[in-house]
């Protein structure tokens, strides 16, 4: 069985979501399967409709505008497109957090088809227990 990486995506900031998709690429390159648990502000970025406008984390400070521009100019793929491409060569499972989904009245149908299932935190922690590394972004 392949080694596993677990990632919790909490922040809805584009730079953090991209960090998640890029680290996932590194995991797949190293032959690892990836389980991603998407909650809170990150989950809003998986909605089919009504996604909040993309922002960067506060770390970007006054460079935010410049970075957004550079990413657009260099045609950096979105975090979601990176994950979808990754699924062509490796195992990347994306799960939505049941608690936040319930809170916001979000159903599986409201989310991008990349979401495999809506699961509870206990189920995800059980997956993370079996994995080699767990990241919270």
């Amino acid at each position, binding site marked *: 069985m392949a080694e596993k990486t677990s990632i919790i995506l909490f922040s809805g900031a584009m730079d953090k979501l991209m960090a998640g998709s*890029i680290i996932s*690429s*590194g995991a*797949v*390159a*190293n*032959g690892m399967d990836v389980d991603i648990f998407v909650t809170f502000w990150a989950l809003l970025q998986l909605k089919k409709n009504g996604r909040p406008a993309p922002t960067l984390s506060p770390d970007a400070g006054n460079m935010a505008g410049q970075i957004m521009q550079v990413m657009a100019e*260099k*045609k*950096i*793929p979105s975090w979601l497109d990176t994950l979808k*491409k*990754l699924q*062509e*060569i490796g195992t990347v499972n994306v799960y939505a957090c049941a608690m936040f989904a319930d809170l916001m009245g979000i159903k599986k149908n409201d989310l991008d088809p990349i979401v495999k299932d809506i699961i509870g935190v206990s189920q995800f922690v059980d997956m993370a227990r079996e994995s080699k590394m767990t990241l919270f972004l």
Partner: protein
Amino acid sequence: MEDVKPTKVIDARGSYCPGPLMELIKAYKQGKVGDVISVYSSDEGTRKDAPAWIQKSGNELVGVYTRDGYYEIVMKKVK
């Protein structure tokens, strides 16, 4: 190098780390043993990452070549 003809060439110039490496891995997975896969990359990270991956994965690193404004990394699929 000149006598090893690539089975497949991936032009990933303009794509950023880890893009070119992921393209290479995709071609590797779709290919067969004996295939020689060449990737063009203008990205510095890939120049280090791709050879490391090729060796770690038990394949053969044919070479890393500096071309005009990009790198060419060539691997042979051994397994």
